């Protein structure tokens, strides 16, 4: 009984290590793990979590994708991107709608921005003259 309780406790503790929740980007203090630039704009940022629970932070979605594709050894758990309309709020990348190109100007010229809702993305699509993409399409576009 005691043993199983201990096992449960240990597994809970271990499980909480890798929560899969994004860690907020500390603007102007965290550096991008790909391009070394200090992350200064919470609209274009991105974050990646590995299976082992290590966090990598990026100033541009393109940096995250370049970083992810350059490595084939470490398995990833989750990708997060910043919602363009909220200041520095990370959301899961698979659920996002992306706009790329046009007059969008991101820190490392990946020139992609993320929206939570498709409607918002479509609203900005005409304004920026950009292409609407899903996460998968964006991932393979760099």
């Amino acid at each position, binding site marked *: 009984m005691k043993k199983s309780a201990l096992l449960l406790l240990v597994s809970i503790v271990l499980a909480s290590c890798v929560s899969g929740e994004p860690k907020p980007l500390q*603007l*102007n*203090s*965290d*550096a991008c793990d790909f*391009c*070394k*630039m*200090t992350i*200064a*704009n*919470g*609209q274009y940022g991105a974050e990646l979590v590995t299976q082992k629970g290590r966090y990598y932070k990026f100033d541009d979605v393109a940096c995250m994708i370049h970083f992810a594709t350059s490595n084939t050894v470490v398995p990833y758990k989750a990708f997060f991107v910043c919602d363009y309309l909220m*200041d520095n709020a990370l959301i899961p990348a698979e659920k996002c709608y992306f706009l790329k190109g046009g007059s969008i100007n991101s820190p490392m*010229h990946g020139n992609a921005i993320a929206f939570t809702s498709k409607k918002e993305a479509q609203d900005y699509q005409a304004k920026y003259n950009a292409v609407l993409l899903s996460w998968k399409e964006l991932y393979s576009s760099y």
Partner: protein
Amino acid sequence: MKNVSYIAYFFFMLPTLMANTIHVGTQYPVKSIRQAITLSKDGDTLMVHKGLYREGNIVINKKIVFLGKGYPILDAQKKGEVLSVKADSVVVQGFRIINSGFAALDDPCGIKVYNRTFARIYNNRLDNNFFGIYLQNCTNSIVKGNTIVSHGTQEQLIGNGIHCWKSDNLQIIGNTVSGHRDGIYFEFVTNSVIWRNISTENIRYGLHFMFSNDDSYITNLFKNNGAGVAVMFSKSVKMFNNTFEENWGDSAYGLLLKEIADGYIFNNKFIKNTTGIYMEGTSRIKVEKNDFVSNGWGMKIQASCMENEIVNNNYLKNTFDISTNGSLVLNTFNSNYWDKYEGYDLDKNGVGDVPYHPLSLFAVLTEKNASTMLLYRSFMITLLDKSEKVLPSITPDNFVDKTPLMKSLPL
């Protein structure tokens, strides 16, 4: 007779050709700047007298000289842009420009020049703007003697002091910038010079180059910025006589070089930075006659760098002179002065008789495992370092200065 009529015609036309000066101020008939701009013609001078002008966004769409006398204040009251220049050959001089809007989406500025040539921005004082001076797609323009201050905080979004985008032939001279995101920012700017500016206490970089080729920055001071200076993705950038001072922090570097080629770093001073120069993906750069004093790391040269020449520099009082992350060495070190050199010079030619290995064992260890820093200056580490100096095993043995100097260079 014909000549006389020409001369008469000339005198007749003279008043219309002559540029007028329009005075703006409380004691003059024209009270508002907007009204004065509407009244003016190309070539006129607008003399704005001392006072507070709250006219929102002021657009200059004619070739005029826009002068302030006694620093008149243009206040946008936190709504939008203060001064927009939308004509060629405009001079803006002697204004105090304050309180642009703060918005993330449309980047409001103190002064913004749109797609123009021969803009002259002289001796203005900008305070509390989102962006300071923004040159968008401009050529042959000069930004000189401006003081640009903002009050950005660590958490807040803020623009750059002097932001130049897609421009050519710019001169950025004698400006003072502080409290912005990047003091001076160059993106797609070519054939330009940055001379005698002071960039301090900016939140990110004192100076930031992105995709900007064939530029020089000379005799500038970059002090106490969040992350120093960054030169990235650029070719043929010359860096002379600058001072990089007190850029402290985990990801702060005196000078961060990333993906750049064919530059020349000459006669600069790197004082009290976490890392003097950090190089990654850098090739064919010559680093000559620089002072590296009291830095945590003098230089960090990543293994992705090649064909760089490090010649005639002084390394004084640094915790580590050089550090690297791999065993591949494709760079050359010649005739530098290393204060940690313990060799001798029997033939008294000023050059040490034994080669110097600037890469210490401990620098390699801390690069691999940062927490070993705890053991720094312990007896065992000193012992290991000494033995490594004699017989390099972990550190790459071709990481060597074969002609180390016995005396520091007078720089």
